[in-house]
């Protein structure tokens, strides 16, 4: 009797609940960003070159610069960004749940992330690969000599899988020492808990630069994986994905056309190059097509400059990372960076 009454109440209650409430919608991210007046951007918790705080405590870096450009394109002001620092583990739920609008956190583009996790990668802003760092004193010249070594690794990353694949395929044994954050993994390597430490090759250079004696450590020649890193958004909002994709393409095309932060305002007044005119809005209506203002690309480029300026500022020769452009040079300079035309 009592139980019957209770289940009756339960049934009524659930009907009430189902008819009354709806979940927050994520459909039109572009409108949401405009309404909020700020872009919520997910970045690393700290990785030299890619996302770090400057001496004034502001977030800055290669991944940060992309979000500033996107905020410029959408809101006209690169400073209207709310930074959300994310670990390797909570970055995806943060994007799925709508806590952030875009994830720009050195994330590898893979099929399962694109398809199964329900995201859309908007392009590649850094072609990376997984590398290893070890002590020069070990005397090992190649990864294949690392039989029986202990290797520090950050958990929950594609690097964990590549590592397992590589050592299995080559029939070498190793002791994996998985650690939650990059910072702790690096410390474990420094304490010689491990013989080697593995992460994206760009991250290795960044890490090595922070060691007290960088010369005592060598980066192994083998790169064991393809790691195309790029920004991503939720699947199912194509307009927003387009905005994010073409902002990235605009930065790359700007380098190709020689548009820089310094000369973009001047060029926006009109040039004799129709491609530049279309991109910067003095001709055609590309901005309207994207649902943005006419001068969206001007604001995007003004934020931190074109791709090359951003790269050189945070990763290039004059930084502590001293990374080569390598694969990340423009297609016309021997790299594979190739943005579709803006017409």
């Amino acid at each position: 009797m009592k139980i019957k009454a209770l289940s009756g109440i339960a049934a009524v209650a659930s009907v009430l609940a189902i008819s009354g409430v709806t979940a927050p919608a994520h459909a039109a991210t572009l409108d949401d960003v405009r309404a909020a007046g700020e872009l919520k951007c997910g970045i690393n918790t700290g990785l030299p070159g890619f996302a770090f705080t400057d001496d004034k405590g502001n977030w800055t870096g290669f991944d940060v610069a992309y979000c500033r450009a996107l905020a410029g394109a959408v809101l006209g002001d690169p400073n209207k960004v709310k930074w959300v620092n994310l670990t390797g583990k909570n970055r995806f739920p943060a994007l799925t749940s709508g806590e952030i609008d875009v994830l720009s956190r050195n994330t590898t583009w893979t099929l399962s992330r694109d398809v199964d996790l329900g995201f859309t990668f908007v392009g590649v802003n850094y072609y990376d690969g997984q590398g290893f760092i070890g002590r020069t004193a070990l005397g090992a010249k190649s990864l294949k000599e690392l039989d029986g070594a202990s290797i520090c690794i950050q958990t929950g990353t594609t690097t964990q899988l590549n590592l397992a694949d590589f050592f299995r395929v080559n029939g070498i044994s190793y002791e994996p020492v998985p650690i939650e954050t990059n910072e702790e993994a690096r410390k474990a390597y420094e304490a010689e808990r491990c013989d080697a430490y593995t992460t994206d090759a760009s991250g290795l250079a960044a890490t090595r630069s922070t060691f007290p004696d960088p010369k005592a450590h060598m980066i192994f020649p083998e790169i064991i994986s393809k790691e195309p890193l790029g920004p991503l958004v939720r699947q199912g909002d194509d307009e927003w994905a387009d905005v994010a994709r073409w902002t990235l393409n605009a930065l790359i095309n700007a380098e190709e056309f020689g548009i820089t932060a310094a000369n973009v305002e001047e060029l926006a007044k009109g040039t004799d190059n129709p491609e530049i005119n279309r991109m910067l809005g003095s001709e055609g209506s590309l901005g309207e097509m994207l649902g943005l203002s006419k001068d969206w690309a001007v604001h995007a480029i003004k934020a931190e400059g074109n791709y090359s300026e951003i790269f050189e500022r945070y990763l290039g020769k004059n930084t502590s990372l001293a990374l080569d452009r390598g694969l990340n040079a423009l297609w016309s300079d021997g790299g594979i960076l190739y943005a579709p035309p803006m017409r």
Partner: protein
Amino acid sequence: MPQTTRTNDDWFQFRRILTDERSRGIVIQVLVVLAIVAFIAFITRNTLINLERSGLTTGFGFLADPAFFDINQPLIEYNSQSSFARALLVGLLNTLLVSILGIIGATILGFIAGVLRLSKNWLISRLVTAYVEFTRNVPVLLQILFWWALLTGLPKVRDSVSIADTAFLNNRGLRVPGPITEPGFMWVLIALAIGIAAAVVIARWARKRQDLTGQTFPSGLTGLGLIVAFPVLVHLALGQPLDWEIPERTRFNFRGGINITPELIALWLALTTYTGAFISEIVRAGILSVSRGQSEAAFALGLRPNLTMRKIILPQALRVIIPPLTSQYLNLTKNSSLAIVIGFQDLVSIGGSILNQSGHSLEIVAIWMAIYLSLSLATSAYMNWYNKRIALVER
């Protein structure tokens, strides 16, 4: 004020529901149940809608997919081709390993510290007080990091501390010889089983005899002899079918034997000392709860202090000790999930990797909660059974 007698009646009936204690209670309960059910229905629906919207599928089918990552020192056969489910099992076993080791260590440490804190020796009782106050007032997470930092600060591999050239201690752990069993070893295990069975039988017989005649028999020592000496004799008689694999030095590490990682040791030490401090307080409270008259009566009967403690005080203290002890065991098991900060691959650490590789966060979190809940309920059930067994039979 109601106008007609009829509505007046209705009003009166309605008011009675609210003023009558019994019916008011039912109304409130119904409202609370309604609210809870509505809330759960809301959460469930919200989750399902959001999952559908973001194109995520739910279900546990993914657990059969290969994991593709390696695990340091699995207790069971595991490689990167094994399934997610097996990886989770490896994690669960690691959680169980460190929890059981921790519970054993913390219980022993806690009982010793609890008794010592009541010692009449000023130095001993103050030292124990310092230990208890220090460890239980510092977050266990920091203690885990402290022990880990300490252990990774040990000598590097090439300067390993050698213990008689059979075991080696360095900042990658303690490497000890591993057992290699040969065919005849089964007989040694059988001898061990016989020894244990015989010890139990003798203990029962001795107890019965003491109940009947009052004569004591050293059943503890006899039992120990049977359990240890008998298998050892069989082992020697069969020409030592158990061999030991001594670790040998290779270019980077040691090979062979068993490596006890600094992560496991750090976690175990931290959980043991932290929970041990709480247990010592529980034990102290338990002992103090036994009235002074009990020990005085025991001394008056001529029992020695040691025997008084074992036969008179502790059995009575246990009924005060066991219930809070249970919650300490539960705390220790749950605290073991902090292993993640130092990379000990327990259930949470491996579940986290799976969550990341597969993206099935809801399912993994559900599995985590279900497993920790089951572990806690199982521990509670056992401790409640034990508590009932040792409870004073009141006449």
